[in-house]
């Protein structure tokens, strides 16, 4: 899945009132909420996001957790 797929999913989410940037990692969409991260606590919202992601070719969706400073660089061993 290309970055274009991520952008398209981002637009689709915005059309439904969900503001998030989307990073495409193959079939995984990583969402960074730009507002109201607590909205994802609602199962109906999660179902809607998952359905939209499937329509855009993603098999997995994960929301990035912040709240603590992100570590710069990678820690991949």
């Amino acid at each position, binding site marked *: 899945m290309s970055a274009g797929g991520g952008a398209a999913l981002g637009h689709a989410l915005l059309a439904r009132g969900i503001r998030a940037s989307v990073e495409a990692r193959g079939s995984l969409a*990583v969402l960074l909420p730009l507002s109201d991260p607590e909205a994802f606590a609602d199962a109906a919202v999660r179902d809607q996001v998952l359905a939209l992601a499937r329509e855009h070719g993603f098999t997995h969706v994960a*929301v990035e957790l912040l709240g603590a400073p992100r*570590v710069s660089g990678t820690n991949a061993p």
Partner: protein
Amino acid sequence: MSTDSGRPASSEPALMDWFREQGSALVGFSGGVDSTYLAAVALDALGAGSVLAVIGRSASYPEVQWENAIALAHRIGLPLLEVVTDEMNDPRYAANPSNRCYFCKSELWTRLIPVARERGLAVIVDGTNADDIGGHRPGRQAASEREVRSPLAELGFGKDEIRRLSRARGLPSWSQPASPCLSSRIPYGTAITAERLARVERAEAALRRVGVTGDLRVRDHDDLARIEMPAESLAGWIDPDRAVVLAVAVREAGFARVSLDLRGFRSGSLNILGGVATP
């Protein structure tokens, strides 16, 4: 009488008879639901002098599972041997292809065959059950090539029945969630290293300490950890005040970024991501 799956209902007496026909057995033992039940029945049927449970230990075998397996074996009086396996040094395994399990199980059974021979044990068995038939199971080919038997599968024992029979025997393993090896956290094509395995193990242990329960996996996407937890737990943990606890725990384990899978725990998740299975 049939089970809900339509298979003929299996019976523990049939399994006991199966073992008696063999005379002695080496049980590939992980401490999981299936191998624990299998070993317990073997012990009943054959006696401690004719059964040996063997744990294959490597960096992919979670420490907590190893401790649990030892405790279980002691609890039921199961003769136990530990063998170190070396699949990590097999480049065919370490490359993490979609048939990785074939190389892992090949290494395991290759190590166990001489043990069975030296101790005069008639058959090597594993805990594969009837529900494991089908799906993506390359490890089964390795077992088949080395004449490892799977009596639970052969006699039609499904997972639910094994749990029920385990509970009836008083085995604490009856309610254990599935516990695949740590390599199952690494997407196909990403090299398996001891460091990656240790990192996911640390992350999962940290999440358990902060209170995550049930089926839990930390999937390794290089810099990014993707947490899979029971779907019914998501609402409680996705609240920003609680999510920060997850993020801190997993970052301290060594991941730069932390994410939470919105669908929740999915068995075989990386098979789907890797295109080996369909969603």
